[in-house]
């Protein structure tokens, strides 16, 4: 009986792990700035949302993504709603990709990810600069997008391992 309860607990913990990571990363803004690497930054949240909504949106629902965006805006200090909009656009792209792609392929996903982050970062930069008159460093956004794109395979490898573990536990 106790082992049954333990299994259910592990199952639900694993099931909510992507949401936990999402909120942890928007609250914490994992940035490694204390390493003092000039210009190094990447957007972990973009990778997380793209992967989980493309692979299996059951683990990361759109409502949580919307709230995570609101939290991110408050932490970072940009107009509220902007990150939610951008995160949901990533979801729209992944939902579209899921509908048109029959056999998933890593290279296709990676290129789609690049196009997606370039699109949403452009929307974010343009709206901050033109609509909200907040001066932004375009080069830093580009570098951020570059590192996010480069680090995508590393996180995909880790997320694949996690996804398999979750799938095994939830199918038991």
């Amino acid at each position, binding site marked *: 009986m106790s082992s049954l309860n333990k299994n259910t607990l592990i199952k639900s913990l694993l099931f909510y792990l992507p949401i936990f990571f999402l*909120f*942890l990363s928007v*609250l*914490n*803004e*994992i*940035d490694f*700035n*204390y*390493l*003092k690497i*000039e210009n190094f*930054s990447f957007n972990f949240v973009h990778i997380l949302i793209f992967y989980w909504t493309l692979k*299996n*949106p*059951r683990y990361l*629902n*759109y*409502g949580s*993504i*919307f709230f995570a*965006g*609101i*939290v991110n805006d*408050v*932490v*970072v*200090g*940009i*107009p*509220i*709603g*902007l990150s*939610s*909009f951008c995160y*949901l*656009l990533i*979801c*729209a792209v992944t*939902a*579209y990709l*899921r*509908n*048109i792609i029959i056999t998933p392929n890593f290279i296709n996903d990676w290129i789609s990810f690049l196009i997606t982050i370039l699109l949403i970062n452009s929307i974010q930069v343009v709206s*901050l600069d033109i609509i*909200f008159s*907040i*001066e*932004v*460093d375009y080069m*830093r*956004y580009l*570098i*951020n997008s570059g590192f996010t794109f480069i680090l995508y395979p590393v996180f995909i490898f880790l997320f694949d391992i996690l996804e398999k573990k979750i799938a095994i536990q939830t199918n038991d």
Partner: protein
Amino acid sequence: MASSRDDFVIAIRSAFLKKRYQQKFSLLTLIFLSLIVIVLGSFNFKAIQYIKIGVNEVVYRSSFVASIPENYFKDLNITIDEHLNLYDQFKKNEIELKKLKEKKLLNDFLVLENKKLRELINETVQSEDVFAKVLVDKDSPYLKSIVLNKGSKDNIKIGMAIVDRSYLVGKIIEVNYTNSRALLVSDLNSKIPVLLEPIDIHAVLSGTGKNHGVIEYTKDEYKEKLSSNEIIVYTSGYGGLFKPGLPVGKISTNNLNKDNKVNFFSDFRQLDYVKIVSYEIGSGN
């Protein structure tokens, strides 16, 4: 041709409108909701302001708690770094201490003289300091800002200066009930009136989004005067925002290309506690 267009339309419709995979809301609904939030957020209605303050209070505190593990590693990294450089740092400090002791004597005299002169013209500078803890310190590519644990209940107001030891680091841009947000001087949107000493030139210091600032809007002969000395950048007090004479950074003239790069005195990545300073210049006349 027509069938491929139909496929595209079906895929788009399915992506935006269908609630599959245990989703409670459709994507289109949430996208519209986020657009409504953006539009409402740009209005200054009282109700929206209260909601914003409430959300900020909760999120800032949660962010502080969520950052504890990362902050632990950050502190550990700094401690290791300090231990590794202990001997070199000691030697540097020894030399610097000797120089500072000499300067202190002169400084004490100048402070007394300045006080007497201010009394002669009936001018007094009254300042109030409030110590605050840095709750959130995120070096994001968007805004260079910090969140402090003092807000409107501690009489914090927009525009107050933030000082680390005696160095200016930023100003308050948003005030909530128990916390506030300060924009760092390194942010792209930061522009502060400064005085360059000893060449005695007024200028504007702009943030660059990096760990240095640049001098803008000043006299053309400014670069010619740079050649001789190390230039210290102080707040000029123009505009009445900051107390005059707060040190901000220095322009090192070692580099041959004579760029107008200002290295800040304070390391913004290691801010734990800061002072929020408000000041008032009183006149007896």
